[in-house]
């Protein structure tokens, strides 16, 4: 009991404010999850490590503003996602989003059915997907526009609900829904482009 009390005291600064040790106790257990998110968002191990370190530094500075320390995990995820968005904007590499109508029209299901790249398969769509390597999928995800990638990765990796995502991204649920829809469409198209590059499809290169 004495040890537990000492630990608790050590986690509190003079004003009852969490200090570095308190922050570390609450935040470091989420290191692996944060790294996983960073890796899926950046597609680069070294960039992901830098991003995680920066997230923790920003988290420590802002920890006193966190009202509910039990929500440290989504809060850290939010910091990390915003860093990705800010860096992307600052880099000037942000490509203009194509018109949503173009993206909405794309259908991997239809492309596979139209091209019929595996004429002897009785499970065409399933067998088509089985040709992709893990790396193909990760690369495809990194190539989709950041505005769609962030919510999509949070759904895939963290299983966030639309309500949680709306709070997280500070936008209405309708926006979350359309970003996830277009994110999936963009991912479908990246996978199709990958299939063309890797020669799964013998048709035209478009």
């Amino acid at each position, binding site marked *: 009991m004495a040890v537990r009390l000492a630990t608790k005291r050590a986690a509190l600064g003079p004003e009852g404010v969490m200090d570095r040790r308190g922050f570390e106790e609450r935040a470091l257990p989420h290191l692996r999850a944060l790294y996983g998110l960073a890796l899926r968002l950046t597609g680069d191990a070294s960039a992901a490590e830098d991003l995680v370190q920066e997230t923790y530094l920003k988290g420590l500075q802002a920890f006193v503003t966190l009202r509910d320390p039990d929500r440290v995990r989504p809060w850290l995820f939010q910091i990390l996602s915003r860093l990705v968005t800010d860096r992307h904007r600052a880099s000037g590499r942000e490509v203009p989003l194509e018109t949503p109508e173009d993206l909405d029209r794309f259908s991997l299901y239809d492309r596979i059915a139209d091209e019929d790249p595996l004429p002897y398969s009785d499970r065409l769509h399933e067998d088509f997907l089985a040709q992709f390597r893990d790396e193909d999928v990760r690369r495809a995800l990194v190539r989709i526009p950041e505005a769609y990638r962030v919510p999509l990765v949070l759904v895939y990796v963290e299983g966030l609900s639309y309500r949680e995502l709306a709070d997280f991204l500070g936008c209405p649920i309708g926006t979350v829904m359309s970003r996830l829809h277009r994110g*999936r469409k963009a991912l*479908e198209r990246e996978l199709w482009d990958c299939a063309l590059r890797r020669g799964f499809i013998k048709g035209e290169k478009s």
Partner: protein
Amino acid sequence: MSAISCEDAQRRLFAHLDRALADEDVEALETHLEACLECCDRLEFSRRLDSFVRSRLGEASLPPGLEERVHRALAVVAPPSEEP
């Protein structure tokens, strides 16, 4: 409840997979799916693709030394407070 078109149904498939549709939208979609084999196939493909992507993303293992690196970085910006 009004019937929905294939286009409306397809617009709702992803949200349906994420269990994010309102009850009346789920009902409208399910009514459409009962009568439309193609939209059923599309839903099944989307479900399979989602599960395929999730499985390919997998779990990232923590790089050796990252925890220590973060510890060191935090120690530099905010030295540990005195033990009481």
